[in-house]
């Protein structure tokens, strides 16, 4: 049982890292960024490139993944979202634009690296097993859980306590007012995309380390999970996204453990049923604050 809880926390951590970046862009700019899975995948490939071409250690590769995908996020914004923002297009347009962008990048990666699974160079990843009680725990995963929590704490700090964070929050509240208050809106948007994509990229690299199998479509399964996570936690709330991620991770595994074998097939229905219920009963999610427009 303890082992399953550990599994759940690991899954939740990966969901959280993915969803937090996704939620950040949504909360600040109201954009559902369907290219986020692409950023996630690119992170894994950047790490691969660093390790196989330059022989860098995994830790440095992860940092490189953060920086490169962060910059890529700014590029993504300039290309796919900025033109729409300038003319005040509805959020739906941004969603479709990012979808087109994602198709292009995934296909380019498939043409370059092949659609098949790729692995990190042998021996480049730490392999330790930690014995906790009678449970054997993969050291790498423990490290990843720790890193995920650390990164989310850092994000919380940046958003809550720095000038940049205040600018981003002002932007999220009301872009026009933010501009009037002297916030450098363009810089805040760029920062939002840098942080969001950087986190997504690190998540991809870490996940790549954990499974040692990366491929161009690897981010796609997380998209629907991220929706669920955001809705359950509360759209536009970063702590909500983290909470939602762990709830989903634990819920999925609890459904696996406690459902009788004949109903095991219904496990996913529980996740999405949960999503649906939350929306109907409490549309703003557990920690959210604005789902239903007021009069």
């Amino acid at each position, binding site marked *: 049982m303890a082992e399953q809880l550990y599994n759940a926390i690991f899954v939740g951590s990966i969901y959280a890292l993915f969803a937090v970046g996704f939620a950040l862009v949504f909360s600040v700019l*109201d954009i559902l960024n369907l290219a986020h899975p692409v950023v996630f995948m690119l992170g894994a490939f950047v790490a691969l490139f660093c390790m196989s071409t330059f022989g860098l250690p995994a830790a440095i590769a992860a940092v490189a993944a953060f920086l490169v995908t962060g910059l890529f996020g700014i590029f993504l914004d300039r290309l796919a979202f900025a033109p729409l923002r300038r003319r005040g297009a509805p959020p739906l347009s941004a969603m479709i634009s990012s979808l087109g962008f994602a198709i*292009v990048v995934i296909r380019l990666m498939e043409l370059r690296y092949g659609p098949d699974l790729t692995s990190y160079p042998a021996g480049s990843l730490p392999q330790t097993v930690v014995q906790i009680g009678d449970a054997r725990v993969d050291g790498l995963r423990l490290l990843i859980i720790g890193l995920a929590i650390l990164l989310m704490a850092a994000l919380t700090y940046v958003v809550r306590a720095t000038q940049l964070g205040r600018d981003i929050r002002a932007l999220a509240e009301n872009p026009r007012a933010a501009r009037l208050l002297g916030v450098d809106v363009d810089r805040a948007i760029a920062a939002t995309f840098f942080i969001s994509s950087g986190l997504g990229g690190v998540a991809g690299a870490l996940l790549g380390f954990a499974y040692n199998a990366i491929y161009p479509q690897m981010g796609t399964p997380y998209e629907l999970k991220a929706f669920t996570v955001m809705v359950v936690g509360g759209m536009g709330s970063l702590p909500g996204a983290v909470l939602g991620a762990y709830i989903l991770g634990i819920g999925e595994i609890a459904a696996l453990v406690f459902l009788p074998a004949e109903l095991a097939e*219904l496990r996913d229905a529980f996740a999405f049923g949960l999503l*649906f219920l939350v929306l109907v009963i409490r549309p703003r999610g557990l920690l959210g604050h604005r789902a239903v427009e007021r009069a």
Partner: protein
Amino acid sequence: MDALGEFVRVYQTTIGVIGINALLALSVWITLYAGQLTLGNAAFMAIGAYGAALLGMRLGVPFPLGLVLGAGLSATLALPLGLAVFRLRGVYLAIATIGFGEVVRVLLLTLPFTGKALGLNGIPPLTELWHIYLSLVVVAYVLWRVQGSTVGRAWAAIREDEIAAASQGIAIRRYKLAAFVAGAALAAWAGGLSAHLNFSIEPGDFGFTRAVQILVYAVVGGTPSVAGPILGATLLTALPEILRPLREYRDIFAGLILMGVIIYLPRGLVTLAELRKTRRLQEIGAADVA
């Protein structure tokens, strides 16, 4: 004429799928026109497809009746769903309907009579091209006429400003629900036609990707008029065939075209037709001056 016959023979599936996608795009257009962003139409399509196919194969229900019953079933399910999500707007509604879609997909993978992951195979191919295009013509005409009616105006008013619309005597909930249910029934109708188009269906055909596709057809085509979704579905469905010579690069071009349309044609592909009109007006103007 011979060349045309040949063309139709080769591309009859593509032509059929274009018509079905146009119907699907119109199904989501109805809700968009009423200001609701739904991503549940793939699930309603699935209900229509499985409904029509199962009724025909297991119970021997005639094809047209199967279509009607599939659409009816879908509408019946849409009613309570619409009531449940009625308060949600924008992206929240979209995500709630995604949740519904996934639940439907998981059920199709689980229920004893849906063939699970294997789907339904050996569905008799009863759908003729004229079924699809007759449906499309009728639906397009009806929607075009509805646009100028009290109902169409009420939907547009709700889309523009729900609060103000309520003050004009529009029963918001009833009209939103009507749009939602009509969209669900139409999507199911298209689903029933598609199930009988080519032998087999499986749950994977009706997932998130499909839901997004349907929405993309409508939005890329342009939502202001009925023509937009039809145009969008036609072009985007034909695109893989048109881009076939590009071989492994065709996805890239499809993606770029998607971005290009969204960024440079704010009102969708129908803007192209309008542009041509204005240019002609300018030419006439120029002639006057000369």
